[in-house]
């Protein structure tokens, strides 16, 4: 059994061999991952069911489909993305090659989370491979069936040395973080995010931290409550509330609180029937520790719906709490469970203030027919992302960067943003050894005349239109010739 250090060292050596860089290699690995997901779909779904009581449909929609889509996107776009990107030149560099060269960073560490244990490992992995890196994969030990399956499957399909899977708990992860990586991608809690960043600081390793927080959901008096509540109920109770971008709590006016409650109740009955425990589509809390944590949050609260729990199966019914105090325990930590507090406020302004008094969340949700209000709420608050008049959906568009801000994280990924996250943008200027006369204006001995030439060449005075640029280029060429004569 290889040690952690040996595994990481081998990944580093494999990276330095250069074999993860060619485009063809990256595409081959990505297509192999695609085959893995398609061929092993039943096994993956079974692991997710064992870990979270996730239904096959949810497993497909949220863990498998997203992965296949991401791979398809990468394979289609990678040839364009890896090509050197030419950038605008100035007069001094008109005859030179100037471009940005996207390069891999080296050995990337991806640490997954337990709530969407497959997709939260696969999507960063796909991005890191697409960018040409070696990747050390560390699935969450809490979703142990998925962790075990990932460790079994990955080496069967893609390069064993470049992409090792390391499993283990807190101790092992802490030890792993002592190794030097070229990028660390972590999904999890803000508390552990700080520990990861601190470990990264020792090696000046850049990090992407996908953390969490309390994503507020503002429901305006002026909106279609029936639809709003249906969408909120869907997003809140998905995966039994264990979603980083679930609407954590509702902010609404006292006058509509009851209607909100009634609508959500109605929706839940439509979704799951009268006896939710029997519904095959409703998940369970991942383990006893989180189950107990959630039960404590219910203490002292006014439960108007749900509240049933069963420790043996880690079952907690979809629950609604009304008139929740902002000072209560449930409003002090990310819930990550099927408990929906409603906090009443008197106006949109109060909602904005409430949101801004707290840490910046991963997502902001707002329901309103008033487009101006939506614009204002977005511009007066901050969050990782926003979906207005729905929840969660901004996650599904790969062209939108997915990430947090402040306590909810730093950096982002998905689609092209993944490629950029795991790449280094190297600035390249390729000159020739000729045209030395142009260079002479910057060499000592200095003089006022040289300074004036330098200003002409270097100073960006105005916004040049395309025609102006051509004229300037001609002028530059003439001047270069003049200077050559003057200084030769």
């Amino acid at each position, binding site marked *: 059994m290889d040690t952690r250090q040996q595994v990481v060292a081998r990944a580093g050596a494999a990276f330095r061999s250069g074999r993860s860089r060619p485009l063809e290699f990256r595409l081959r690995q990505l297509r192999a991952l695609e085959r893995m997901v398609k061929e092993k779909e039943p096994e993956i779904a079974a692991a997710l069911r064992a870990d979270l009581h996730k239904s096959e449909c949810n497993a497909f929609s949220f863990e498998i489909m997203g992965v296949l889509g991401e791979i398809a996107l990468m394979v289609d776009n990678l040839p364009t993305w890896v090509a050197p990107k030419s950038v605008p030149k100035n007069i001094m560099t008109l005859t030179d090659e100037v471009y*940005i060269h996207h390069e891999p960073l080296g050995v990337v560490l991806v640490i997954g989370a337990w709530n969407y244990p497959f997709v939260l490992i696969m999507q960063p992995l796909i991005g890191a491979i697409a960018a040409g890196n070696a990747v050390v994969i560390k699935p969450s030990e809490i979703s142990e069936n998925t962790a075990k399956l990932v460790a079994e499957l990955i080496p069967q399909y893609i390069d064993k040395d470049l992409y090792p899977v390391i499993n283990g708990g807190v101790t092992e992860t802490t030890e792993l973080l002592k190794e030097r990586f070229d990028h660390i991608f972590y999904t999890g809690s803000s508390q552990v995010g700080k520990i990861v960043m601190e470990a990264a600081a020792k090696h000046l390793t850049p990090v992407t931290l996908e953390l969490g927080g309390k994503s507020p959901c503002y429901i305006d008096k002026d909106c279609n409550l029936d639809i709003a509540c249906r969408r909120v109920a869907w997003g809140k109770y998905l995966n039994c509330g264990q979603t980083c971008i679930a609407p954590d709590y509702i902010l609404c006016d006292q006058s509509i609180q009851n209607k909100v409650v009634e609508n959500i109740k109605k929706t839940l009955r439509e979704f799951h029937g009268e006896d939710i425990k029997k519904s095959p589509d409703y998940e369970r809390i991942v383990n006893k520790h989180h189950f107990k944590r959630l039960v404590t949050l219910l203490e002292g609260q006014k439960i108007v719906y749900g509240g049933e729990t069963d420790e043996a199966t880690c079952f907690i019914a979809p629950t609604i709490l009304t008139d929740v105090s902002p000072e209560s325990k449930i409003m002090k930590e990310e819930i990550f469970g099927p408990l929906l507090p409603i906090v009443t406020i008197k106006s949109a302004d109060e909602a904005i203030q409430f949101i801004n008094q707290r840490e910046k969340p991963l997502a902001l949700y707002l329901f309103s027919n008033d487009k101006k209000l939506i614009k204002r709420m977005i511009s007066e608050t901050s969050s990782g992302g926003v979906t207005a008049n729905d929840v969660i959906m901004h996650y599904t568009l790969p062209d939108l960067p997915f990430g947090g801000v402040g306590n909810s994280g730093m950096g982002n990924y998905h689609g092209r943003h993944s490629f950029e996250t795991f790449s280094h943008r190297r600035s390249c200027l390729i000159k020739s050894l000729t045209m030395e006369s142009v260079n002479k204006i910057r060499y000592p001995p200095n003089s006022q005349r040289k*300074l004036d030439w330098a200003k002409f060449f270097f100073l960006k005075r105005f916004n040049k239109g395309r025609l102006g640029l051509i004229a300037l280029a001609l002028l530059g060429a003439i001047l270069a010739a003049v200077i050559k004569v003057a200084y030769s």
Partner: protein
Amino acid sequence: MDTKGDTPGKAPTGSDTGKTDSTAAGMSPYVSLVSSLRSAWLTGKTRAAEHRVSQLEALGRFLDDKKQPILDAMASDMRKPPLEVELSEIILVRNEVNYALNNLSSWMKDEFVEKNLVTQLDTAFIHKEPYGVVLIIGPWNYPLNLILVPLIGAIAAGNCVIIKPSEISSSTEKLLAETLPNYLDKDCFAVVTGGPAETTQLLENKFDYIFFTGSPRVGKIVMAAAAKHLTPLTLELGGKNPCYVADDSDMQNVANRLVWGRCFNAGQTCIAPDYVLCSVETQEKLLPALRHAITQFFGPEPRESPDFARIISDKQFQRILALLGSGRVAIGGQTDDRERYIAPTVLADVQPSEPAMQEEIFGPVLPIVTVPNVDEAIAFINSQERPLAVYVFASDSKLVRQVLERTSSGGFGANDPMMQTTLISLPFGGIGNSGLGSYHGKFNFDTFSHHRACLLRSMGLEPMNSLRYPPYSERKMGLVTSAFEIKRKGTCTLL
């Protein structure tokens, strides 16, 4: 004091919020400063385009009005020649101001993105927003440029900013502290002066972004401090920038460019060519060319040339002095501690184990390490920490390409050092030990902005949404796939 670091939503109405805490035992003296900037931030006034434009224009005016004081301060700090000051500290900064002013409105616009079937009727865009209160820590070698250019980015992006210029370039520090606040909105902008102790205290506070330029050693300290608050950051650090000179090069042109790069600001430039890698034969050809270039530029006695700077401090002077024992002094080597003068110096036949190859030189001293061929040169470069820049001098474009592909660095220059950083369209930053993040031009604006994903849906089309609601069924799964996925190019979707 709110432990989360954010003061309550409404700006304090003329009260002493925060000021009373600063005298409490053990409390950082900057708590009230940061707190007042945060209050200004929460009023939202730095977000408005007009405010950003007015601040940027004011910065432009500062550069115009204070040109002579700037020249004087630089001369006082490190005897930086006027042309070098104009080029590196004034022109390049003014370029960034103008570029930001010219492009601000397009940078600030929401960036619309491609949608899938389900979101076809929705609005999806990336909204650029400021982080909040930004801290910029500057170094002493280009004390104006390396603090004002990030400041331009931070202001353009709509943030409130605290700048902490280096105390080592003390004349420039004084100029900035005394005059810059008069040009900018004092509610939203502040200058903090002081040394390592003050910087440490400042870093105890929570910032929404930190931009640091300096050494890797201090970079680690800054990042560890940032980790406590989950503050994102950009670190512009340093390293030893290798310069491979191929055998077939035009030696005089190579020498001119090398000497220019090595001696600009007396070598105190993070992207200067740090050391040369070449064959023994090339070293022999390069030495007379280097000698010729130095004489052309600075005359037979460089100490008398007005175009050659001095070392910033006694500490730095002594540090570089200690490196002169490496290899053999082939050119220069003269020093004068009263003026902190070190002559343009070339050390030949330096061994990788010697002191000159153990640290970033940051002085007008160029070691030459001989290697038999380009493969050895590449192997050597890859055995070291990744630098801010890799340079190659060669007429063979295939060789240039080889060095580019087989090494890693912040940036890359063929046949000329440093110029890649004068192009506003290229991102400037390091990798590994030489830094993380980048800036200049639009990258400056992007660095100081949070890219917020926004999806504005309509309340209609609810039947489409019903595909995603329980109870689930096989039929629904097929439809869900079609609606959500972005299809591979060349396939068609029929719903």
